């Protein structure tokens, strides 16, 4: 193992009903994914404000992933449909500003998809690791 190997910081917003339960299931099944992924529980993916996403980058996150119920399965019937539109536009805008599009992702993970949760996180961490540190949306004041 290399010394000082770059470890990205990933913030994952998970909806309480599907994806957070999916993450729990990944745990129950002892499916490994990198510890760099830190989960924040929200009632529904539609609770995630674009400001939270930017805040995470400001504070030093290298990637932000939002997980919710599959379209049509939202506990609140329509929340994830709004998430889908909001994040589609936000991500497109970030890309437009030249920020690497691989740093943001929305993934639908059901409560039964523990394996998908782990696989998604593994893949996301790998992609963000390949990109390296977030320089384009960083706030130097927050770097030590």
């Amino acid at each position: 193992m290399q010394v000082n190997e770059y470890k990205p910081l990933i913030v994952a917003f998970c909806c309480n009903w599907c994806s957070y339960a999916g993450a729990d299931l990944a745990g129950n099944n002892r499916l490994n994914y990198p510890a760099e992924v830190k989960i924040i529980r929200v009632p529904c993916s539609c609770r995630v404000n674009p400001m939270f996403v930017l805040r995470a980058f400001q504070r030093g996150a290298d990637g932000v992933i939002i997980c919710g119920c599959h379209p049509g399965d939202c506990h609140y019937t329509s929340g994830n449909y709004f998430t889908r539109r909001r994040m589609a536009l936000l991500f497109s805008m970030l890309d437009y500003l030249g920020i690497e599009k691989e740093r943001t992702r929305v993934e639908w993970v059901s409560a039964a998809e523990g394996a998908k949760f782990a696989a998604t996180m593994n893949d996301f961490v790998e992609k963000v690791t390949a990109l390296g540190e977030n320089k384009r949306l960083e706030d130097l004041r927050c770097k030590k």
Partner: protein
Amino acid sequence: MQRIGVFVCWCGTNIAGTVDVKAVAEALKNEPGVIVSTDYQYMCSQSGQQMIKDAIAEHKLTGIVVCSCSPRMHETTFRKTAASAGINPYMVEIANIREQCSWVHKDMPIGTEKAIILGKAAVAKVNLNAPLTPGESPVTKRALVIGGGIAGIQTALDIADAGFPVDIVEKKPTIGGKMAQLDKTFPTLDCAACILTPKMVDVAQNDKIRIFSYSEVTDVKGFVGNFDVTIRKHARYVKEDVCTGCGACIEKCPMKKVPNEFNLGMDNRTAIYIPFAQATPKVATIDPNYCNMLKNGKCGLCAKVCAAGAIDYTQKDEFIEEKYGAIVVATGFNPISMEKFDEYAYSQSKDVITSLEFERLTNAAGPTAGKLLRPSDGKHPHTIVFVQCVGSRCEACAEKGKEYCSKICCMYTAKHAMLTRDKYPDTDVYVFYIDVRTPGKNFDEFYRRAVEEYGVHYIKGMVGKVTPEGDKLKVQASDLLLNKQLHIDADLVVLAAAIEPDKSARPLATLLTASMDTNDFFTEAHPKLRPVESPTAGVFLSGACQGPKDIPETVSQAGAAASKVIGLLAKDKLTGNPCVAHSDEMMCNGCSSCERVCPYGAITYNDKEFRMPDRTTLIRRVASVNPAVCQGCGACTVACPSGAMDLHGFASSQIMAEVDAICK
């Protein structure tokens, strides 16, 4: 500043195997607000919980962080623990260091580091937690049932039976719905009227039930337990409480050529009418489109002959406002229009009829007094062709048919075929089918009897074309099993038309903020686990408005809806989830964005007077959230550009504090 206690659980070796729990407890000691931080083998055990209670008492804690298994597992446990020790249960946060840490990471230093960060995030959140109290709202102990068919009738009877008052709103002059038009019912072949009309009488005589017939719901405000409903009672020009239903007016009415909708236009009625003998309420109604008196002031015969003096030509629509605790939607179905199916010549020949028309033709109270006669010439048909799936399972042309299976046609067609053969053994009966679907108790046996005992010709294949020629209907069809094209000279063709939700359902759904699918069937709160509730709290579904169903299924769903209503009305108060949205009126600009994303219709607007800093007053439109209706998804909080809308328990500041703690 909070006084926070941190409790790190070992969960035996589940957590302690991969996370250095002592190091976690130690690291969290230094976090802002943390007064005490400790670890224990099983926090959820009796002694673990006692430890938390003791710490609350000893250190006067105001907030609790438990680093343990998933909050989905034990959040409730620890909230109860906190509550029993006298602090608000919503001052507890769980850091999930088992499912999302120790179980997914193998390396102790890595697991420990992550557990500390998750703990810090939870501490950061608790620092911003506020005590939450679930809201309470009273329950109006009265139910409204919209639709007076068998679904509505059964629901109303069951609710009334439990002792709660129920109002039925029916847009036709009588309750009874589609079932009142049917002849016999499958699979037992009892007569529909025989089993329905006693229930209609029960409804009429039940002092807990009021019937608003010839009425419609025009406005719904409020929320679960507290609906304010406006009902428009159409003028029937007959005083309902005075009319005895004697029928003298009907006999005298000179306007006798009004198509009788109860018999689907196959015969006529008078301008003043009672739809059928057992109508409930049994009160006459004047059809303003045909009544000469109402149209041009000439006639007035009915008023002259009415001994009771019930006729009132000046009657106006009446608006009734009533409060309800629960609303049941039972708006039912209609067969789709056959006009677009040119290939079956429905519009060209009177002898091509729908199954519902066939019901009337075989019904003793129908236009032919129960004799099966051709509508065109009144002759007895010797060859009858039934066509199934007309407009059902039809994906290709949305303007013609429906993509779904209408579910009831296979069985009623078997019934029609069987009854025809029973009464008129000299008749040849053909049924063209794609599949015969008979899941249901005694259903397949019933269908088999039609084939085996009654000699109905079931042919796998479809009719391609019906051409009227002379007094015959040339039917061109395929027999897929014989791989032959058939040409049958039929006397009567009966189309099993697909069914669709009543047209009134869509506007009603808007009033109720209840969601619908693309076919205008009401959506259930959960397709499997909450099949009789709509996602809108306090709105329940009964019968075919939710999806095609037959009578037994409708009645059982009606009962289920009723029991849900009874369960609701039995409560004196409703306790909500306190993690709901709330709007800061000072910041809200009333733009309606939040309202448009709310799936529950929990947000309303009102004009509020503000005292401005310069001592003037200003009236502004602001949003307010009804905590009894809000389910706490948070969609509104992001739709709101000013951040006036926030969510209790998942406030923006709390989520951002978690983000900060994680990214530190």
